[in-house]
């Protein structure tokens, strides 16, 4: 945009920029710490967790038998915290994986097949965008479709429009096209050029995009669980625990705030690190 000789002067003085770098490193460290706590709980937690069988005295304070006390149903709070992260992490990973596995080929074919296919597919996908994501999950729950499979399917489904658009955009990027034209001219079959090769080139930006969707998916899944429209109430999951213990918020806030805090740390940590990653790439 800027013509020769009219280059804008740097807006920020050098010292401020250096202070900016320090702030950035601090934020990155904060992100790592915030993400590590819930992630460790989710991965290692279940192996260390005490039993979460119901039947103890509800809402007990911390003591020798229950280190963090008990929740509404008399279940051990520490056990709930250590076991409740596995569902969030696994379901998020499963839903994202499914969404990208389906959307990648659609995006690539759409990009390869010209204007008409493109207009129709994107138009259809845009209709999906008109339905707020949480609404889709809740409508499914209202009609009795609330197993893990439905949950993963629905969450993956509402990601589709965004991901297809992204893959299509990346596949049409000029650098990508120029290299592939050469391949086409040497007589490679179209699927090899347009699907396999383009796919390989599109993969890095797609993986970056997937990381930006993590906290959104965690938020969607946990909101559905919190509203009683996600997992079965018997499943041990941070958001389900929050929902079940809402009535105890005034009596023993820790029962609600600790699982909610772990979810907050998971989402906040992910986003701080993703932001850092995006900035390093640009």
């Amino acid at each position, binding site marked *: 945009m800027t013509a020769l000789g009219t280059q804008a002067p740097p807006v*920020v003085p050098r010292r401020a920029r250096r202070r*900016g770098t320090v702030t950035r490193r601090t934020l990155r460290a904060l992100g790592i710490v915030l993400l590590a706590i819930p992630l460790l709980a989710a991965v290692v937690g279940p192996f260390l967790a005490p039993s979460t069988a119901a039947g103890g005295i509800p809402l007990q304070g911390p003591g020798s038998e229950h280190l963090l006390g008990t929740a509404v149903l008399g279940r051990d709070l520490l056990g709930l915290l250590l076991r409740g992260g596995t569902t969030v992490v696994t379901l998020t990973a499963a839903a994202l994986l499914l969404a990208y596995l389906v959307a990648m080929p659609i995006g690539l074919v759409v990009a390869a097949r010209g204007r008409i296919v493109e207009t129709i597919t994107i138009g259809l996908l845009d209709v999906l965008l008109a*339905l*707020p994501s949480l609404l889709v999950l809740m409508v499914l729950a209202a009609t009795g479709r609330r197993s893990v499979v439905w949950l993963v399917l629905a969450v993956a489904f509402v990601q589709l429009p965004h991901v297809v658009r992204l893959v299509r955009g990346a596949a049409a990027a000029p650098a990508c096209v120029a290299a592939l034209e050469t391949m086409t001219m040497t007589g490679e079959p179209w699927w090899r050029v347009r699907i396999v090769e383009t796919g390989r080139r599109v993969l890095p930006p797609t993986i970056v995009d997937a990381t930006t969707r993590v906290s959104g998916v965690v938020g969607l899944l946990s*909101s559905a669980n919190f509203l009683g429209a996600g997992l079965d109430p018997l499943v041990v999951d941070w958001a389900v625990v929050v929902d079940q213990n809402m009535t105890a918020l005034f009596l023993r*806030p820790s029962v609600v*705030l600790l699982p909610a805090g772990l979810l*907050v740390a998971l989402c*906040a940590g992910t986003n701080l690190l993703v932001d850092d990653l995006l900035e390093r790439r640009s």
Partner: protein
Amino acid sequence: MTTRAGVRIGIALLQLVAVSVGVFVLTTFLPGDTAEVVLGPLATVDQIDTLRAQLGLDRPVRERFLDWAGGLLHGDLGTSLATGRPVVDDMGDRLSVTVLLAVLAVVVLVPLAVALGCYGGRRPGSPADRIITATSTVAQAVPDFALGLLLVALFALQLGWLPATAAGTVGLTGLTVAMLVLPVAILVSNQLSRLARQVRIGVVETDTAEHVVHLRRLGLAERTVVLRHVLPGGVVPSVQQFARTVDGLLGGVIVVEALFALPGIGSGFVQAVQTRDLPVVQGYALLFALTTVVVNLVADLVSAKLVPQAVRL
């Protein structure tokens, strides 16, 4: 311009049709028997059959859809299974609360996003810019209900400044400003990041653009340069983003109303889902989807008006 607007309105109408088909498919067409779910495991076969007939589930899908769509055209969304009242009446009562909440959220959100985006955008890479971006990113990432609980714990339980719930209010009666502070704060914090970021990018671009640099060289007051030239450049591309925040705002309304027991359409929807009140669920789903379609339409028309080449039709 007029033809373009016409085409865009046509697309919106098609979207409306597609969305109502989508809602119908979601609620009745997917595998699983709704009547059994509504009545629960203790229902007798007779009860299930009666409800199935009442919901029209014993008739062919095509006939059912035409019936439902016909009702829609007359503004008839059926009657609630729980209260026996027409769904439309139920919605009308609750709409005022949600509209109030949404308007307040937008009134706080837009100036705040523009101010923060503009401040950060004029100092890209500085500590202030990074902290603004990081804070709003974190606020956006955190699930509404979790953030809500933390705020309730702090401001209602610990400090006692604000009420923790709006339970007991009906419509707008009994609702106080204090009750709305936390819900609006949560809605805003969740949407602030994307909008502020978009404004920031626009401001960064315009602030270093040739014509603005030239205006500075001419000796125009910095204030005039920023307010007259930099700011508009940052705000125009954000109109589209503003429309996209509506999806988030609607999702947020569902959670926030449920959390604070605000009697709006969000909590109405959650209640209907929990009591399996199918006609009400359908009605609300349609209302939410319709809002998104209309807001997107308006955003497209507005940004086409502001920058005619911005919209690809």
